[in-house]
């Protein structure tokens, strides 16, 4: 499919969008929180990816390549802001319901808040591991860091989240 898209087959490109738009959008959303910003980053990610498909090395996994573009775009977006402020807009959560367990909802809210409070380098490893479900090896390849460093950063990020959730008495 990637090769066909590279050859200019728009249907193949559309299939790639259909397949990857959700993880790319969700990664951006967890990094930025604001759905509009996440949408812009997702769009830029795909356009950059399609614009540079000639540079894509097929020996690497496509998802790893496009996720790296997405994370870099989100980080660039964050870097372009002079100060990062919490967005109070509502998220288009796919599964809201008045009957949802209050406890679970509070924990979700607390963890989303806590995620936005930790440094973006820390948030990135959390997103790669827990939103995109990448292996340590894939994370290491993506971030161009040794696996040991990736693990150390991931562990630190989780503990920072844990500390914040304890402060909020959310766990």
């Amino acid at each position, binding site marked *: 499919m990637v090769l066909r898209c590279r050859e200019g087959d728009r249907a193949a490109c559309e299939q790639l969008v259909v397949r990857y738009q959700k993880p790319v959008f969700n990664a951006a959303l967890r990094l930025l929180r604001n759905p509009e910003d996440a949408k812009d980053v997702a769009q830029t990610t795909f356009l950059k990816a399609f614009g540079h498909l000639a540079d894509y090395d097929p020996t690497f996994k496509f998802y790893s390549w496009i996720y790296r573009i997405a994370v870099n775009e989100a980080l660039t977006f964050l870097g372009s802001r002079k100060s990062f402020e919490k967005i109070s807009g509502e998220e*288009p959560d796919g599964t809201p319901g008045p009957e949802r367990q209050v406890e679970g909802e509070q924990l979700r809210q607390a963890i989303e808040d806590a995620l936005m409070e930790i440094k973006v380098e820390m948030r990135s490893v959390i997103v790669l591991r827990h939103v995109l479900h990448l292996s340590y090896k894939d994370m290491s390849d993506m971030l161009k860091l040794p696996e040991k460093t990736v693990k150390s950063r991931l562990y630190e990020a989780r503990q920072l989240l844990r500390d914040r959730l304890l402060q909020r008495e959310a766990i």
Partner: protein
Amino acid sequence: MTQREYIALIHAEIDGELDAANRAELARHLLADPDARALREDLRRVCNALDGLPEVEPPAQLRQSILAALPQSSVKRPGLASPYWRLAAVIATVMLAGAIVFETLKGAGPAAGNLSGTIAAQTPAIVATVRLGDGPVAGRASLLHERAQWAVEFDLASSAPADVLIVSGAYSLRVNGIAGPDKAGGPPRRVTLSGFQASEQPVELRFLVAEKQVASATLRQPATR
């Protein structure tokens, strides 16, 4: 072992990356140190909550806006000038030449079947699969194992937003929005079971719609001798 190293073991255990020796070492430490037990419990909760964050559907217009912004010429065709294609051409030539030489010189080699384990190890092993019949939630769920990590893959259809509670012994994980009308026709969804350890216990799946259980299924690991 230092405190820092024990903490690393806790994280590795949650990620399903701990070998037997380190698991035993961690178990001894946890028995002796209530603070370590509390930390492990907290980190499990954090990881379960992170893994259970709902996947948000991208805005409906995202796909169209990407395709609309994509001019016909924007997808660049790689020529042989691209280093990757040049390399691919060289590799293909070498492989073709190698195949010809191999076919000419081949003697008694290993059967193809003997090599298949190497390839199979690259993909997750399906440990168990269960089908859900007609009902509010229908489809398939599979228990997967890959590189010491466990996961459940769901390929479901549901007429209403459904959550799933995954329970096995003391382990439990809730995933909201595992199926629903907005997800119809989407790809299967894989849920990583952070901190899950393989055991004799079956993995129960309880599907909830509006907090009422509407279906359940059990994934049983094949008995080992």
